[in-house]
């Protein structure tokens, strides 16, 4: 399995979930640096929604795990104030549905501060949230593209436990605001071997989740795993797919994407979010503009169709890029 490939069998590695890996990163960062604090709703006895803060309150107490009422907008602005004063707040927005409430604080305040202040201030802040379709089907929004039009903001979404830990560490260490999106479906879906202590997974760098020569699939989050499954299926027909896991969605690793497309000449982009106006449009556009000559055929984009995300399973299942949809897209970019 892929997790094997990614994980050096380091001393102290244990099989943990993506959720636990993120918690481990936060816990280690909080141990190492008193400036790291967390702020959000129900982080105490409840342990955060979906146990996203499990154990932290007991370890770090109310002055570092700060509970507020329902006020995502001002809570995020408040965290900007903390960051400006040298703290490293991690803002917990329970679910991505609530990101638009904090849009002003994220897009207009956090993202702009370094530039507008002429580098006299900075916002070392992580906004973490949970989104995407999951086992209990609530809070299925994928709003990352709403924030990918904001110079100054970094957006991250991990697909596996090891990189989740490493990316969270990098996000906390960064001196710029990072929107960190944790996919609900992946939250407890698997256990992977994750080393204790520091793992360095840099922001802004994509990973080649699977090497291949025939077609490039660019994706992130949950869809990385679906793409790998599709690639494995296609491999049985001797179709060799390369899967690029963006990890950082914005600004994305243009170099890695272009390198792969230049090799394969064929591009499929896949994500859970709406196709229209989504991250995929930016990737297709960038590749087309920068590597038009390498493309042998029209790129394919697989995402959600243009309706609000419905609740019922039979409807939701049409929205999400599954193995069949991705496989079909790969077939469309191959010569018949």
């Amino acid at each position, binding site marked *: 399995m892929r997790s094997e490939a990614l994980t050096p069998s380091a001393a102290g590695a244990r099989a943990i979930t993506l959720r636990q890996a993120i918690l481990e990163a936060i816990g280690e960062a909080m141990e190492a640096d008193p400036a790291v604090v967390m702020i959000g709703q*129900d982080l105490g006895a*409840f342990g955060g929604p979906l146990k996203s803060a499990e154990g932290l309150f007991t370890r770090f107490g109310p002055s570092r795990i700060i*509970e507020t*009422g329902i006020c995502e907008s001002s809570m995020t602005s408040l965290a900007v104030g903390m960051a400006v004063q040298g703290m490293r707040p991690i803002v917990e927005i329970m679910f991505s549905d609530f990101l638009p409430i904090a849009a002003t604080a994220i897009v207009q305040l956090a993202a702009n501060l370094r530039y507008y202040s002429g580098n006299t201030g900075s916002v070392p802040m992580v906004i973490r949230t949970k989104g995407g379709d999951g086992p209990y089907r*609530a809070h299925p929004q994928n709003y990352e593209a709403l924030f990918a039009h904001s110079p100054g903001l970094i957006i991250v979404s991990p697909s596996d436990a090891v990189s989740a830990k490493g990316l969270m560490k990098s996000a906390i260490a960064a001196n710029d605001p990072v929107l960190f999106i944790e996919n609900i479906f992946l939250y407890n879906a698997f256990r992977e071997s994750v080393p204790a202590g520091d793992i360095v997974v840099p922001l802004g760098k994509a990973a080649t989740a699977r090497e291949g020569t025939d077609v490039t699939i660019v994706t992130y989050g949950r869809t990385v795993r679906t793409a790998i499954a599709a690639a494995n299926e296609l491999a049985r027909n001797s179709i060799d797919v390369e899967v690029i896991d963006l990890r950082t969605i914005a600004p994305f690793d243009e170099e890695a994407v272009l390198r792969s497309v230049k090799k394969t000449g064929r591009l499929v982009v896949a994500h859970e979010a709406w196709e229209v106006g989504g991250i995929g449009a930016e990737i297709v556009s960038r590749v087309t503009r920068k590597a038009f000559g390498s493309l042998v055929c029209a790129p394919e984009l697989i995402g959600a169709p243009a*309706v609000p995300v419905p*609740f019922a399973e039979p409807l939701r299942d049409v*929205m999400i890029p599954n193995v069949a949809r991705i496989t079909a897209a790969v077939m469309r970019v191959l010569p018949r």
Partner: protein
Amino acid sequence: MPVGSPRAREWTLEELCGLHRAMVVSRGIERACIEKSGHWYPSLGEEGVIIGTFSQLRPDDAAVPHYRGGLVVPWLRGRSLVQVLGCVTPSQTSPTRGRMYGGFAGGMEFGVMPFITNVLGPNIAVATGMALSFKIRRESRVAVVTFGDGTAGTGEFHESLNMGAALGAPVVYVCQNNGYSISTETQRTLAGKSVADWASRYGMPTALVDGNDVLAVAEAVGNFVARARAGGGPAFIEAKTLRRGGHFGADPGAYMSDEHTRAAEDSDPIRRLEQVLSQRGCEDSRIKSVWATVAGELADAVAKADAQPALTCHDLGLDEIFQHAI
């Protein structure tokens, strides 16, 4: 208020029985939903606020219920129990057609606003806007909105009450205060005395009532609705109730105080109304038969709702996003 204390208005036995039956139906619906999903947000024990409030509207008034316990509100206005349960087991014939989480369904055909976004807060403004429309058109309709104590801490709450007051909208705001916002005792995150105290600062009449006394709620809402209808403008009610159990069905609520849990058990709004009914000479057997009848109706409704034709991928409705294709 102890049972039998003087009431603000006369209640006929029939009216009392109507409220009772509605509360029993509300509880039955919730029980059925909890059985269906551990992620249901139950309103058990909060029926006094829900029924006390939404029973006091005219059919043409706008109802904007809180997400917790809102499923019964369209039933009060004529939606069949099969359709109510259909919201929770989405099918081709269910009201939501599977598009929304059942508890957020509302029912616009019945003048009941759905929880279109699960962001807490905006519906307080939505209700204010509905009320303002009625005022502009000189209709004698009002809007009534319920929302939680957690929701009362949002900026939307304050902005909405301020607009409602400044514009004189015929709206009644009801805070269904069950003491908790998920695991948070709201008294810990809401600074100050009470939500009612906040509301009073917008210059509108406010009342603090025992939300587990359905009659007290109904009387307060009835008064303020009449006042708003007569052009008196907005009003606010804080109805204190108690969340019975965790935030969702599968949440054991381990963080809740024993005190809260005991108080919730002790002040069951249905039992309290039943005491009133007894005092008014209503026989025990009649009360019991209500429970039995409702249980039967619900079992039947669940079965019928479950038997509706299942949704398929063809029901996505790609062309139902705009009125005219763009």
